[in-house]
């Protein structure tokens, strides 16, 4: 399989004198692969995800995603990279409260300057696929946690990114809703969507990822193929 994400000896320090959040990590993720990143709090999971998404820059090492050398891009280049290559899902959804569901989903496409008709069609398609079309004109505050995460997933997918990054996507949800969102991610991966999932829940990782890496103190302590996947 072709490599989509390639991290080469990546280190990230927030404090010059402190311990690195991520230390000498080398990692490859293939197109269509589902990778779970696990580890205890403070192990560097979210930092690793931020480095792949270009939300943060490594102190040393190289980050390549879909042919882009992410760590070398300018801020404008990073913004364009995120529009094109990456969709992000957050634990607390990060929806914009003063925008309707449809406006939230459409935002990345609008920022990318996509034609209005194309954007509208894509938004309608995603809202229908994720079963939130009835809430199209509602504001996020009126939705349940599961519905909000579906809106966030729709927003992450609107520009058809090669890579979906999910940071504790079920962390703020009850068990049943978390299962529902997990199934949704699994379906997406089954249809070829590459996925990097950060979680501290071994069960979730085992069920919804093909491969699991363990991070401890910023270093990869384990890299294994998950067995319980459906």
């Amino acid at each position: 399989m072709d490599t989509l994400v390639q991290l080469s000896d990546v280190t990230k320090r927030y404090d010059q004198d402190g311990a690195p959040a991520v230390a000498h990590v080398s990692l490859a993720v293939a197109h269509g692969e589902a990778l779970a990143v696990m580890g205890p709090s403070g192990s560097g999971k979210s930092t690793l995800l931020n480095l792949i998404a270009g939300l943060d820059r490594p102190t040393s090492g190289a980050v390549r995603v879909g042919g882009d050398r992410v760590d070398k891009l300018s801020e404008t280049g990073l913004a364009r990279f995120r529009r094109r290559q990456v969709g992000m899902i957050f634990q607390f959804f990060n929806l914009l409260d003063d925008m309707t569901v449809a406006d939230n989903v459409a935002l990345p496409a609008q920022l990318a300057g996509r034609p209005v008709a194309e954007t509208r069609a894509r938004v309608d398609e995603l809202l229908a696929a994720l079963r939130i079309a009835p809430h199209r004109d509602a504001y996020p505050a009126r939705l349940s946690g599961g519905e909000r995460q579906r809106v966030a997933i729709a927003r992450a997918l609107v520009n058809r990114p090669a890579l979906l990054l999910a940071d504790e996507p079920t962390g703020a949800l009850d068990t049943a809703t978390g299962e529902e969102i997990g199934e949704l991610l699994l379906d997406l991966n089954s249809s070829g969507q590459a996925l990097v999932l950060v979680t501290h829940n071994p069960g979730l990782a085992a069920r919804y990822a093909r491969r699991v890496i363990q991070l401890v103190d910023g270093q990869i302590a384990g890299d294994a193929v998950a067995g319980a996947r459906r």
Partner: protein
Amino acid sequence: MRVMNRPAARAARGGLAGRRVQAMVIGLVVLVSTAASTLALGLLVDSNAPFDHAFAIQHGAQVMVTAIPSDQLATATPAGMTAKAGPFGETTANMTIQQLAAPGQPAGVLQTQLTVAGRASPGGPVDDLTLTSGHWPAQPGQIVLERNRRGPGGQLGAQVTVTGMPGSPTLTVVGLASSVTGTAEAWVLPSELPRLRAPGAPQVQQMLYRFASAGTTAEVSADIAAVRAALPPGSLLSAQSYLTVKLQATGSIAPWVPFIVAFGLIGLVMSVLIVANVISGAVAAGTRRIGVLKSIGFSPGQVVAAYLIQVAVPALAGCVAGVVVGNLLSVPLLGQTAQVYGVGALAVPVWVDLAVPLAMLALAGVAALAPALRAARLSAVQAIATGRAPRASGGYAAQRLLGGARRLPRPVTLGLASPFARPARTLVTLAAIVFGVVAVTFAAGLGTSLDRVAADLSRAAAQPVQVEIPGTGPAPAPGPGGGSVPSLAAQESTVRAVLRTQPGTLHYVAEAGDEISVVGLADRVSLTAFGGDPGWTGYALITGHWYAGADQADVNTAFLTAAGIAVGDSYTLTSGGRHVTVRIAGEVFDPAGGRPEIIAGLSALAPLDPGLAVDQYDVALKPGTDAAAYATALGRALGQDYQVNTASGNSPQLLAILSLVVTLTLLLAAVAGLGVLNTVVLQIRERVHDIGVFKAVGMTPRQTTAMVVCSVAGIGLVAGLIAIPAGIVLHHYVLPVMGHAAQTAVPASVLDVYQPWEVVLLVLAGLVIAVAGALAPASWAARTRTASALRAE
């Protein structure tokens, strides 16, 4: 107290350290507001009483008498007198002042008559002269000129020749001085004075007095009576009250007061708005922190104290720096203002330096107290919740509406919708920009109006060259080599012949001027008579038309007011038993220092004033003719007996006033810009997490900047639209008030100064202020690291 204040002070210190940008904004806005208010109030106070200020500094003479010399003049102590100076010898001398050649300019000559006093030094208990440049005469042959009389010859080193005196004594100008009550127009050493006194002229001396009571005309009259009683009978020749001089000085000040008041009021209102907005916003943004403090045991009183200290520290620093800046800015401005007013040095009064910062601090305290008390009353959980999610309740509809705007880029619509989220803050920001643009609009109109007033009064464009006729009066200029002076008719004939043949001449007309007393009018009347068509001479007409024929005349506003007549009425002028009846054809724009003025044909006014004689020719030039070159060539053709002058519309007074207008406008625009900066900083702090989300889903730095700038650009544009009519109304209100103070109506050409293209540009002034204020925080937002922004609460 110690128990409460120590934790409060520590908490305040922590708050300041964590909110450096807000502290800086508070400090900067308070600084600019205090500086603008100090300057405005200082100017206001100084413009109200510059004469009193200079009079106090110079210990001005409340009564100045001239008297025949006697022993009692020096020794007499009139009742109620507190100080005196003199006796100083005094004489009137005809002088020729040689103007020094400036680079590129020929040397010139000024013939004038000056009142000269003999004084050993400029100081003294009364009329302590301000030596503005040079030094006091140290030896015979040196002279100091009154600064305001310097004219073309008032330069240090200029040579002064006293004419009509045996040997024509020559003096060198070694200094320039100012006397607030104008006790003399020039000073020499006492030993010099006899050389300057014309043969046969009586010896007179001046005495200068101050009295315990001299606040009213009646008191000054009583003081003069006391002086008269103390001197030998018949020795007092004349007495002048300082109140008369003050009235004239106030007449020159009064026209400028209304616009300074307008700027001052705009500045004060803007300061109130912005300080309240900054500090209310800072307190609101710090609500969560207040909640945290309460949760760890702070009492409501300690929370309020902590927050007041946190606000007071940058506010105090801003106040102190603002007073310093206000005073520094006032130095050149008050210097220029003092020049305009013709009085000594001015400074911001000490009470203004104390009152303005105290008022600003009080204002900051009041603005901070209300929201701090509100936050202190909240439960800790509520305060934390309010602070963590300071979500606006409004703006959803605007966001939705603008989100559907297909033609505008999404960052633009996101920005344009954001003001609706915080309507109260938006309104205060709008008001601050409105006042800023009102100031800009008013200043732009005022500048153009003052320029047109200067052009109208100088008439430099219409008649750029004047030729002075030497004349045949009682004190004629001597002919070259002391030869005989030709008759007036011969002089006029010479001038006309040269003007006819001089290349570049377009029109010329003879002009005569005189002042006469007219029955029924308290003031002397200025007569201006033309020997031909005066229609092109550049006088602006307020109403009516130019006179046509010998039975018509034009007058200024002061004439109409003094005579109680209107344009179209007939009026009979009676002077010395002679009568002339004219119909008033028009009202001309010529304040003439508040003196009534009548303009008519020479044939109409000559029967009223036998002494009325042509004293100059006004000359208009063909397009493209260089006035200076023309004047030089004309002067060569006419010879030394004829002085050729070029008129200039650029007066130092106008430049001083315009620089004052520009400085005040820039300060007010800067204050409005800081108001915008504060709003945008608060907005970004509140929405930093949202900005992180925007960037995470692909918003570029340029799009972020555009979004933030657009969040106030709409406000700026709306503010511009509101402010333009308000600024024009203010201009149309203040200009006539200024004119009224100068005892003149204002012609439409001075009022109708706003061109359509200017209005369009002025509307954009609101946009410029908004964008300028938003650029720095927008750039900060654009540079914010996405991961950090997403972690922000």
